[in-house]
């Protein structure tokens, strides 16, 4: 299933106000993304793993979701050590790996994983729809949040239609190969996907009009800041501020 949400369970993180979670995850990502100090990065990664632990995200799920991120990182490991100027560390044939290069990619790897672990915690503990409403509450323009809702909703529809079309092709003996017949069939598949989804969207929109829709989406989930949210927010802000101070003082 394409869009398998795994917002389940009932951990502390699960119950936090989604707005708090978004703010914390965003600040954390930004700070880590611009940091360069080893201490900061390692602390951030450790912090990320603590949070993901508290949220009770299953290890298997976590690893599965970290795979795509580390794809590009692995790719970089094949290049950057050899293209950085600096003190040579080892060599493979004519290629010389430098200490600076290796450190650089290592930092990137830590950064990436630290940020991703926190992002995974966020989505593991909040449904996408709730995230959308929370974004609206946080001042993201209404048009964007609406677009977000509709896109999310249609992804399901289109993916279902996509799977059904793929099955329809399969049962008629279709096997993708490198030839014109394949390319044409795939183009038709995409075209049909557009057409059918367009028509479906038209019908869904009509259904919404029939139920009194006037351009405003309401949510049943009420957001309210509780004491626990405020404590968590202050705590996390303090930690992130700590990271900033650490990064900044070391540079200075």
């Amino acid at each position, binding site marked *: 299933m394409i869009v398998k949400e795994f917002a389940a369970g009932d951990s502390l993180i699960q119950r936090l106000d989604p707005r708090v979670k978004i703010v914390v995850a965003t600040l954390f990502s930004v700070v880590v993304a611009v940091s360069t100090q080893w201490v900061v990065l390692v602390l951030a990664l450790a912090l990320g793993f603590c949070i993901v632990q508290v949220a009770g995200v299953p290890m298997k799920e976590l690893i599965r979701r970290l795979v795509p991120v580390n794809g590009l990182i692995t790719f970089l490991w094949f290049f950057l050590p050899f293209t950085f100027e600096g003190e040579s560390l080892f060599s493979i044939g004519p290629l010389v790996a430098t200490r600076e290069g290796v450190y650089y990619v290592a930092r990137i790897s830590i950064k990436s994983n630290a940020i991703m672990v926190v992002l995974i915690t966020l989505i593991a503990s909040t*449904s996408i729809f709730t995230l959308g409403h929370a974004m609206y509450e946080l001042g993201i323009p209404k048009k964007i949040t609406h677009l977000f809702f509709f896109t999310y*909703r249609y992804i399901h529809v289109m993916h279902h239609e996509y799977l059904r079309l793929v099955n329809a092709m399969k049962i008629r003996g279709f096997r993708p190969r490198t030839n014109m017949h394949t390319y044409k069939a795939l183009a038709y598949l995409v075209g049909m996907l557009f057409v059918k989804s367009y028509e479906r969207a038209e*019908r869904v929109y009509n*259904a*919404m009009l*029939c*139920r009194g829709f006037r351009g*405003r989406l*309401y949510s049943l989930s*009420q957001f309210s800041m509780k004491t626990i949210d405020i404590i968590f927010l202050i705590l996390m802000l303090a930690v992130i501020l700590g990271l900033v101070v650490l990064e900044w003082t070391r540079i200075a």
Partner: protein
Amino acid sequence: MDKNSLIINLMDVTFAYPGGAPVLDELNLQLHQGERMGLMGPNGSGKTTLLHIIMGLLKPSSGNIEIFGKTVRQEKDFRSVRQRIGLLFQDADDQLFTPTVLEDVAFGPLNLGKSQDEARTVARKTLASLGLTGFEHRMTYKLSGGEKKLVALATVLAMEPEVLLLDEPTAGLDETTEKRIIDILKGLDLAYILISHNIDLLMEATHRIGYMIRGKVSVDEERIPHTHIHIHEHGRYAHKHGLKWPDKKY
């Protein structure tokens, strides 16, 4: 049947999709208070189109539509119509678009200006009345075909409409669910138009049947009582014949 009890009155309504032949051709149709009308006709004869015209989702090229005694023409005229008439779409998938059942059912009441609490209460009550208690937090897109139809019906009923337009509410459903939906409909104190290809079902759930063809609806008021005697095997499944025309009082 006096003029005051008229709820829906279509007069000489004509409609064509862009570039197509007229689907509705000077069509006339009346629905009265408390009346239950069946509608049948070949595929593509324009039944769905007709309901969409009534809801103002499509605009006729000519003709006149009066609903609750007022002529409706503009989008804004139809806004209030849509609060009083509920449309059940032919494909329930079109009707359900939020992730959970409760949110979907509460969507209409929220749009009508109800508070979150009120909306939630109405939604729960409607679900309960359709025997869907416990479905509140199910994902809408994971429901079975029959469950989807029932939830779609709940989303419409939660708006407390005065009239229902039902576009093949039981197509593709098994007999038990079909019967359940029909029983629910018969238990409601509402006027409705019910589209179906199943004559037995229409006989059971409606007072009169319109037949749609060549852009018009002809209502068959004449009744031809007749008898069938038949024998068949697998009798254990075959209990949907033998329906009688329900008491006609409206």
